[in-house]
């Protein structure tokens, strides 16, 4: 657990970057700091590994104040990923990844063997090992950056806008891999982004900061979407927060109607089209989000979303007026 205890950072010249910040980053979870520029999110992140020291207050990792610890030794235990990856241009991909283990005193051979395994872990084949960063695409560099941060298996990772320098398609892929990796590894991650969508997608906990380094709200993505603390948070999470909040609820509680003859099935019972000839436009399972169901219902030419079981066989229908009723009940229950 990382604890911010009444942390203040005032820069020389008097500008306050972080203003009496107290919060906790749970162990094994991803906490995302998000806010407009000048909200102190990067400053907060860098106070965790002492790249910046607080003016007053304490930052603790598992109850130990970082201020008392040797900077270099502390940092070797904390993975760090930055925008553009910040790879060493003069070292091969493999040696970039081997950096921290070697700082920790591992032999070159040991460090390289471990590094090779990590490359695979972040989805890069061994053929990349001997390349230099300049030979990689932005997305590949970012993967190497993540592998490098993971190399010494640190319990804590800091990620400063790790995915903002790549194009949206690549970012999407990196997001998926990040979630997959984090599910396996369960690191305590502090991430900074200016993109609220990214925060909501990747964060277990989201910290919204406002200008001047004040905490606006901390909570799970769904809490922020359903119950924004004030106008600033509501504005920041976006006008379509109601719709986005549906991403966090599954279709498990959604009542369905029995199939009708209007839906044409194949021999295995999978939906093909409506009898009117219109396409079904896709289907959902109980595990999918309410957001997907809503999307299916409103894009369907007949206004009905089709539910299928794990084998793809149709097993229920949701007309959009049923969905509207369900959403109203859901809202009333909150």
């Amino acid at each position, binding site marked *: 657990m990382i604890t911010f205890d009444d942390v203040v950072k005032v820069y020389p010249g008097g500008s306050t970057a972080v203003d009496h910040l107290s919060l906790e980053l749970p162990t094994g979870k991803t906490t995302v700091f998000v806010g407009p520029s000048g909200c102190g999110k990067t400053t907060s992140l860098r106070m965790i590994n002492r790249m910046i020291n607080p003016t007053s207050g304490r930052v603790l990792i598992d109850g130990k104040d970082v201020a008392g610890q040797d900077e270099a030794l502390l*940092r070797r235990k904390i993975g760090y990923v930055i925008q553009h990856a910040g790879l060493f241009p*003069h070292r091969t991909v493999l040696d970039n990844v081997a950096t921290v283990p070697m700082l920790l005193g591992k032999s070159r051979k040991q460090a390289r063997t471990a590094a090779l395994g990590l490359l695979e872990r972040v989805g890069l084949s061994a053929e990349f090992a001997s390349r230099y960063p300049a030979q990689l695409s932005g997305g590949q560099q970012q993967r190497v950056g993540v592998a490098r941060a993971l190399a010494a298996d640190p319990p804590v990772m800091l990620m400063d806008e790790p995915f903002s320098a790549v194009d949206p398609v690549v970012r999407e892929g990196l997001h998926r891999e990040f979630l997959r990796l984090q599910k396996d590894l369960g690191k305590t991650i502090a991430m900074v982004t200016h993109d609220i969508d990214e925060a909501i997608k990747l964060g277990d906990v989201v910290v919204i900061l406002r200008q001047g380094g004040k905490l606006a709200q901390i909570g799970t993505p769904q809490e922020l979407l359903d119950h924004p603390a004030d106008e600033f948070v509501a504005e920041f999470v976006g006008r379509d927060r109601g719709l986005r909040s549906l991403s966090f609820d599954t279709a498990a509680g959604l009542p369905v109607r029995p199939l009708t003859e209007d839906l044409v099935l194949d021999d295995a019972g999978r939906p093909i089209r409506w009898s009117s000839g219109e396409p079904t436009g896709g289907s959902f399972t109980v595990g999918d989000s309410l957001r997907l169901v809503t999307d299916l219902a409103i894009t369907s030419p007949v206004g009905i979303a089709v539910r299928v079981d794990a084998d793809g066989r149709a097993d229920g229908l949701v007309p959009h007026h049923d969905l509207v009723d369900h959403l109203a009940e859901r809202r009333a229950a909150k």
Partner: protein
Amino acid sequence: MSTYLSNNWETILTALRQHIWLALVPVVIGFVVALPIGYLGVRFPWLYHPLVNTCGVLYSIPSLALFVFLPVVLGTKILSPLNIVVALTIYTVALLARTVADGLRSVDALVVQSATAMGYRRLRRLIDVELPVALPVILAGLRVATVSNISLVSVGALIGVGGLGQLFTRGFQLFYTQPIIVGIVLSVALAGICDLAIVGLQRLVTPWTRYQRGAA
């Protein structure tokens, strides 16, 4: 020409050896001295401009004046090769201190930042990361300094110590072109060989620069 060569090859060889020694020893000493000075110019940013200006002034002192002036300061004999070595060392430092500073400043701030965040201490970061990344710029400066020294040594002949330059003075004194031609050819060849050697060294120690797209 062949008679001149066969009759004087020992003189020529001695002059060439002296030329190499007088030109390259200052490069080595100058490089070693310039490294910490250039680093200070980056470590303390307020030092950078004074450093650049001082280097510019030092490099603009005419070599002959320095050769004549140094014995007064150092207490050496006017014919001592030490004068040449010290003078060329000063030029080398003037060229390379700025190059080292510029090289270190050319290192991407994100690279330095990520090295710090991974737990490098200052000195090891300098040796493992900043200097290697600055090498292409520093080696380019080293080429200039080396070639410049090789040409400056000849001026020393005017005060009696000048490697291949002595072939020029002798040729002029005797109204005899052959030593002059040999001197020119050899010093140009020497400069070319040293330059190529550094380029080769650069290829060897900075293989990664071949893949750099545009400016790093």
